[in-house]
């Protein structure tokens, strides 16, 4: 028995090229990876042909989820603590109502005038809340803002 086994199994494969390629891929993915920023709610973005890339820093994001609930998020933790209180520092976004949104937008713009406003609505979100947000933006004099969409493949 042992003799037969030995004959059959004694072979070697040189794994070097495969491992080399694997390591190469590994370094590539490690270098290029960008983790998905955490979100307060799951958002399915609508598609458009808009050419601009989404800015990553100095942004505040007004999110409308599919039920029409509104969330406000800013990217810096310091500002988050200032706006929403220490307890909410680690949350990516906090649910707000219209009145709060109005005041928070003003506060946020005072603490960081460079902030850019992004409106991120779910594909299936009703238009009503979005219209209210646009109205609030107009009230607080934010006339330039971006709507976040996904690249349209077609």
């Amino acid at each position, binding site marked *: 028995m042992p003799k037969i*086994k*030995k004959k*059959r*199994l*004694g*072979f*070697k*494969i*040189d*794994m*070097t090229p495969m*491992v*080399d390629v*694997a*390591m190469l*891929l*590994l370094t590539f*993915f*490690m270098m*290029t*990876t*960008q*983790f*998905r920023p955490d979100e307060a709610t799951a958002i399915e*973005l*609508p*598609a*458009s*042909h*808009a050419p*601009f*890339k*989404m*800015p990553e820093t100095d942004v505040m994001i007004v999110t*409308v989820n599919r039920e029409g609930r509104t969330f406000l998020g800013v990217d810096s933790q310091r500002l988050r603590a200032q706006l929403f209180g220490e307890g909410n520092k680690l949350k990516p976004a906090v649910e707000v109502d219209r009145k709060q949104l109005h005041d928070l937008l003003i506060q946020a713009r005072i603490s960081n005038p460079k902030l850019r406003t*992004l409106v991120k*609505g*779910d*594909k*299936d*979100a*009703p*238009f*009503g809340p*979005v*219209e209210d947000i*646009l*109205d609030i*933006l*107009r009230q607080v004099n934010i*006339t*330039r*803002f*971006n*709507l*976040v*969409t*996904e*690249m*349209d493949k077609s």
Partner: protein
Amino acid sequence: MAALDSGGESKSHARGGKKHKKKRRLSIRIDMTPMVDVAFLLLTFFMLTTYFSKPQTMELNLPKDQSPIEVAESNLMTLRVASDGAIFWNIGTEPAHRVEMKELRKFLEDKNKENPKLITLLKVDRDGKYSMMIKLMDEIAIAKVTRFSLAPMNEYDKRQIQKARAS
């Protein structure tokens, strides 16, 4: 160096181990299997978590105050979107007509060629979908219509839509 030893030859390896060492110190075999395992694990992890398509954004500039701008009636095209996504258009105070999403791009281009001074007003029903607004604004951008504006939909607009549906 990174050659992996398949199970069968470990015996011979163990047998020859001592002899080997005595002979020369040079050829050392390191079993790379665990390292490669970890490397593959990390590789799959990074491959699965990475994402390349960054979201795009659509830039919007709204006028600062609502000081009314007077527009000739014949230069104002109103696009109304009903709550079910149907699109209606009219120019000035003409009765509204329905237009399909597919034809919209061509339609907008034609209308703007006909009248270069045309201003488009977009009104979306509050019960409509947000994606409809994005789609329409996208079509407007593709048709290179730069003069357009958003307005809330009021009762009058709803009546217009109903009239257009009835006819």
